[in-house]
């Protein structure tokens, strides 16, 4: 922790970065919240542990945060404390031209997993489900990396088992299941606000002429909103699970996002946010793409 604080202090003092987005303790050592640090002496606030749940990449596209990097007419770097999985989101944003690699300073950690919820000790039972199928515990891109890898508590991947179990259901049963889940939606759009990839300045659901997605929280409006959200994120979602964590109604959004990640992986061998050099899946094409489903 001291290494992180000292490093950030140094970077802010010598003017390499204009601000650093990080985590600070929130009321208890087993709880954190995001903090944006602009003065070297504030670096003492920073922490990094298994309770750093937020994906801070969501702040990188916000105009208010971007403005922090504009100092005396020049654009400085924005620092971000990112778990290796959050680095995927930063990479995906760079792939989609929302950021430039040289404008962001990535401070990352060799990650030993995070908990599902604040206030729990990290064990096989309390570990976040995304950590169970993590393929990048070391950051793929970084400017500075801290921490040592330790063994991750093991636990069966129940999420994937649940997704697989849907294969045996009839489409009617699946429709019923998701209908009941989406019925809970109150259209608060917390999933959209928490998502680092939902950076559109005007979301399609906010468009009124024509009104594509009905804004009322009734069955039809909920179904179309959740469907559009899932589709706009398929093959773009980096699987950070923030939407599900932000959802006040506990809709299993990760089940859908994870399924679409599997589809992109199986059909196109594509994982989003892994490589700065490759174009995004939906932003490019290959003449040899498969098309068995087309008559």
């Amino acid at each position: 922790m001291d290494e992180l604080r000292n490093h950030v202090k140094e970077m802010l003092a010598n003017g390499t970065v204009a601000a650093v987005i990080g985590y600070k303790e929130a009321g208890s050592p087993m709880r954190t919240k995001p903090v944006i640090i602009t003065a070297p002496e504030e670096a003492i606030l920073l922490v990094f542990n298994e309770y750093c749940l937020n994906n801070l990449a969501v702040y990188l596209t916000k105009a208010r945060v971007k403005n922090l990097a504009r100092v005396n007419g020049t654009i400085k770097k924005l620092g971000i404390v990112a778990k290796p999985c959050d680095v995927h989101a930063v990479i995906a944003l760079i792939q989609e031209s929302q950021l430039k690699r040289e404008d962001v300073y990535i401070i990352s950690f060799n990650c030993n997993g995070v908990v599902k919820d604040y206030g729990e000790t990290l064990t096989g039972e309390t570990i976040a489900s995304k950590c169970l199928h993590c393929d990048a515990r070391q950051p793929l891109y970084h400017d500075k990396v801290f921490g040592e890898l330790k063994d991750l508590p093991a636990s069966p991947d129940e999420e994937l088992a649940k997704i697989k179990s849907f294969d045996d259901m009839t489409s009617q049963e699946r429709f019923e299941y998701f209908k009941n889940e989406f019925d809970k939606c109150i259209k608060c759009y917390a999933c959209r606000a928490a998502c680092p990839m939902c950076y559109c300045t005007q979301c399609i659901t906010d468009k009124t002429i024509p009104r594509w997605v009905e804004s009322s929280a009734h069955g039809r409006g909920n179904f179309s909103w959740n469907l559009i959200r899932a589709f706009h994120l398929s093959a773009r979602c980096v699987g950070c699970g923030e939407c599900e964590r932000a959802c006040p109604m506990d809709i299993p959004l990760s089940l859908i996002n994870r399924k679409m990640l599997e589809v992109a992986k199986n059909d196109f061998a594509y994982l989003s946010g892994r490589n700065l050099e490759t174009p995004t899946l939906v932003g490019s094409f290959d003449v040899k793409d498969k098309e068995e489903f087309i008559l």
Partner: protein
Amino acid sequence: MTEEKWEPKVVAFVCNWCTYTGADLAGTSRLKYPANMKMIRVMCSGGIDPVFIIKAFERGADGVLISGCHPGDCHYNAGNFHARRRWTMFHQLLEYLGIDKNRLQFSWVSASEGKKFVDVVSKVVNDVRELGPFKGYKELNSEFTAVVNGLKQEVNKAEAVNG
């Protein structure tokens, strides 16, 4: 509408340059295809946003057909290649969420394939006929509609009392 009289409603989004012209050829060749198809012409299959499809289901379609130029024949060079990737994802997403994959079908029909257009339309309409009316999506809103209708009745009653 009673069950016996039900006829499938299929909405087709077709590209201006190939499938629409193909449908034209089917017409000028006097080929017959089911009249359940409501065709909507768009400039390119790459311009068909998935919200169009959702909207079609919301407005009571039992099935949707999307058709464009064969790969490599796109009037705009690459529209259908982009569309193909999008559909691969969207088709599997819909299937996962419980919308039968035969309710949403895709095809490539060129301007010279009037016969293929007839075959595709017949197949899609038959598939949708087999699946029956898309009750699931139509009933999504039943509770909400019931509440709204109840309120309307209350308002009417109140108006009748107050003259």
